[in-house]
C-alpha cells in the first residue's frame, strides 16, 4: 500500500511540474525515478520512453504505466497513471471554469486572437521537429503524400488513415524482408 501511494504521489509530482509534451518530462523522470528513488535504471527509462513513443496513447502516460507496472504489476500501473493525470484534471478544470467566465471580456478576446495565430506556428513547428525521425526515404515521402491526398480529396477520418498507414507500413517491411532473404 505504501508503495502504491509512493507511485501515485511521485507521478503526481511529475505531472504537476511538466510543462509541455513528453520530452519535457524526461529530465523530471530521470531525477525522480533513476536518481532519487532508484526504481529504474537510465537505460530502462530510455527503453520505456522510446516504446511509449511508438505505442498508442500519450507518451507521458505510457511511460508512467511502464514504471508502475515494473514496480507493482497492474495495480502499480494504474496508480502511476492516475498520479500523472490528476494534476492535469484539477488544473485544467480550474482554469477552464475561470476562463469561461471571462471569454466575453474584450481584453481576453484580443489576447486569444493573438494566441490563435501563434498556435498555428507551434503546430507547424511540431511537424518540422517530428519530420526527421518520422519520414524516412522514398516510402516515407510517399506515405506522407498519400495520406495528405486521402485526407484532402477523399475526406477520410484520421483514425482510418492511421489504420491504413499502419497496414501499409507493415506490408512494406514484410516485402523488404522477403526481398532480402
Amino acid at each position, binding site marked *: 500500500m505504501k508503495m502504491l501511494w509512493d507511485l501515485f504521489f511521485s507521478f503526481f509530482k511529475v505531472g504537476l*511540474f511538466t510543462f509541455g509534451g513528453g520530452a519535457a518530462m524526461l529530465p523530471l523522470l530521470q531525477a525522480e525515478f533513476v536518481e532519487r528513488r532508484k526504481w529504474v535504471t537510465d537505460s530502462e527509462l530510455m527503453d520505456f520512453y522510446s516504446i511509449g513513443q511508438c505505442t498508442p496513447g500519450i507518451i507521458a502516460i505510457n511511460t508512467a504505466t511502464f514504471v508502475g507496472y515494473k514496480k507493482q504489476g497492474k495495480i502499480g500501473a494504474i496508480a502511476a497513471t492516475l498520479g500523472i493525470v490528476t494534476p492535469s484534471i484539477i488544473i485544467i478544470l480550474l482554469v477552464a471554469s475561470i476562463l469561461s467566465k471571462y471569454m466575453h471580456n474584450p481584453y481576453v478576446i484580443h489576447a486569444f486572437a493573438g494566441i490563435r495565430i501563434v498556435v498555428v506556428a507551434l503546430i507547424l513547428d511540431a511537424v518540422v521537429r517530428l519530420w526527421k525521425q518520422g519520414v524516412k526515404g522514398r516510402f516515407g515521402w510517399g*506515405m506522407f503524400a498519400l495520406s495528405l491526398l486521402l485526407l484532402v480529396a477523399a475526406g477520410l477520418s484520421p483514425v482510418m488513415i492511421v489504420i491504413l498507414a499502419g497496414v501499409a507500413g507493415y506490408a512494406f517491411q514484410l516485402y523488404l524482408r522477403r526481398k532480402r532473404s
Partner: protein
Amino acid sequence: MIYALLFWEFFKIGLTAIGGGMVTIPFLLDLADKYDWYTKGELMDMIAISESTPGPIGVNMATYAGYNTAGIWGGIVATFGLVLPSLVVIILIAKYLFAKEEGGFLRQALFGIRPAVLALILFAGWELARLSLINWQSVLIAIVSFGLIRWLKWHPIVYICLAAVIGIVFEL
C-alpha cells in the same frame, strides 16, 4: 448519453494517436467537425492553454475538450477514455517486453504511421490557419513567430504570452 459518447470518442483517440500530445490535434479537430461539442476556434484556445499549464499536453487537451462538452464530469470521462488504451496496451506489452524485446508488428506498422501522422497534423494546422490567419497582419505575425520558435527554441509558453500581449496591444 453524452458521457458514453465522450468516453468512446476519446478512447478511440487514445488508441490511434501514436506519438504524443500534438498528435491528438487532428483527431480533436475531427470531433469539432463531427459534433457541436466545441468550435475550431475554441480548439485553438484549448491548445494554447494546454501548452501553458502543467501536465502532459495530450491529457490537458482531453480534459479541456471534455469540460467544454459536458462540464466537470465530461472532463474526467474524456481523460479516462484517453488513458485507458495506453494502460491496457502497455500492460500487455510490458508483460512480454520483460521477457523478450522485439517490438514486432507495431514497430513495422510505425514505418507507415509516422509519415501519415505528420500529414494529419499539417492538414490540421492548415485548417486552423484558415480561421486565424485572416489578414496580412496575422500572416506576418505567424511567419515571424514561426521563425522565432525555430530559431530560439524557447518554451511555447513564452510565445503564447507574447502573442496575448500583441493581441491586446494591436486589438487583433
